[in-house]
């Protein structure tokens, strides 16, 4: 078994690590205070929330990790892994691309609306612990 991933990171994602989620909608940031709203962390239709392990990286470096089609002007939402695990989800390494991971373990249920409500409750808990990382402005 490989002790490290191609990125050089360990396969197990630590509680103290931070992960970044690309903000692909301006509606995921509260207009007044730059607060992250919970839809930023809801999973894609495949039930994973795609994130990048970003501990110790600058905003510029985080931006280079994210696939081009998912980089917007809105920056990223960054949260510690222990905040994700506190709401009974997990963060699992999923390379390539380098440093990629998925937030997994979202509630499942037969009623799609009830499943959605439960996922919203979980995502609210993550968003409360998240911070907005804007991209640095280009300088002349």
């Amino acid at each position: 078994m490989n002790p490290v991933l191609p990125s050089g990171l360990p396969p197990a994602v630590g509680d103290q690590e931070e992960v970044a989620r690309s903000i692909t909608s301006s509606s995921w940031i509260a207009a007044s205070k730059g607060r992250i709203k919970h839809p930023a962390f809801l999973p894609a239709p495949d039930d994973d929330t795609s994130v990048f392990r970003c501990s110790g990286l600058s905003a510029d470096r985080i931006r280079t990790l994210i696939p081009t089609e998912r980089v917007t002007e809105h920056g990223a939402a960054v949260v510690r892994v222990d905040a994700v695990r506190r709401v009974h989800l997990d963060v699992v390494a999923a390379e390539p691309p380098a440093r990629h991971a998925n937030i997994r373990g979202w509630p499942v249920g037969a009623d799609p609306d009830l499943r959605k409500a439960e996922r919203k409750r979980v995502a609210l808990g993550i968003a409360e612990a998240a911070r907005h990382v804007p991209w640095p402005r280009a300088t002349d």
Partner: protein
Amino acid sequence: MTFVALQPVPYTSHVRAPTTQSAEAAMAHRLVASVQNRGAAFVSQQPPHEAVLEDLERLVADHGKPGWDGDQAPGVSFAVREFAAEFIRALPETVPAPELAVDPDDGAISFEWRGGYRKVFSVSIGASGRLACAGLRGSDQWHAVLGFDGGRMPDDVVRSIRSVVD
């Protein structure tokens, strides 16, 4: 930590919605219910949350096509837009305006009220027209699904909004 699961409340309109229905059938039912609920007290005034309706139109314009997130997100459908507009029109003027967002998993419109750290309540309305609700208030947290017929706002929604913003 306290977990509270609200019980779904019955439809309040005298026009009852079937429990399972297509988005088109749900839309037709709600149009009838909406007209009936407003008929007795017809007034010619702007809805109290007109600015939120404008926010909705901007969101729909920006998130109408699938893949708006650069990945798999469904676009906001016509039905979702109509359901969301009905929800906004039904919001009492006594509650503050919500912040809107688009959900990446199903193209639903999310409405959020926040009164501070871990004082937040949110409702998503998607293609079924039902209200997927969730809230945090300190260590309390809850989620529920509520019916909404396009007319009167469910009391549990108004109570939950007030519990986080008052």
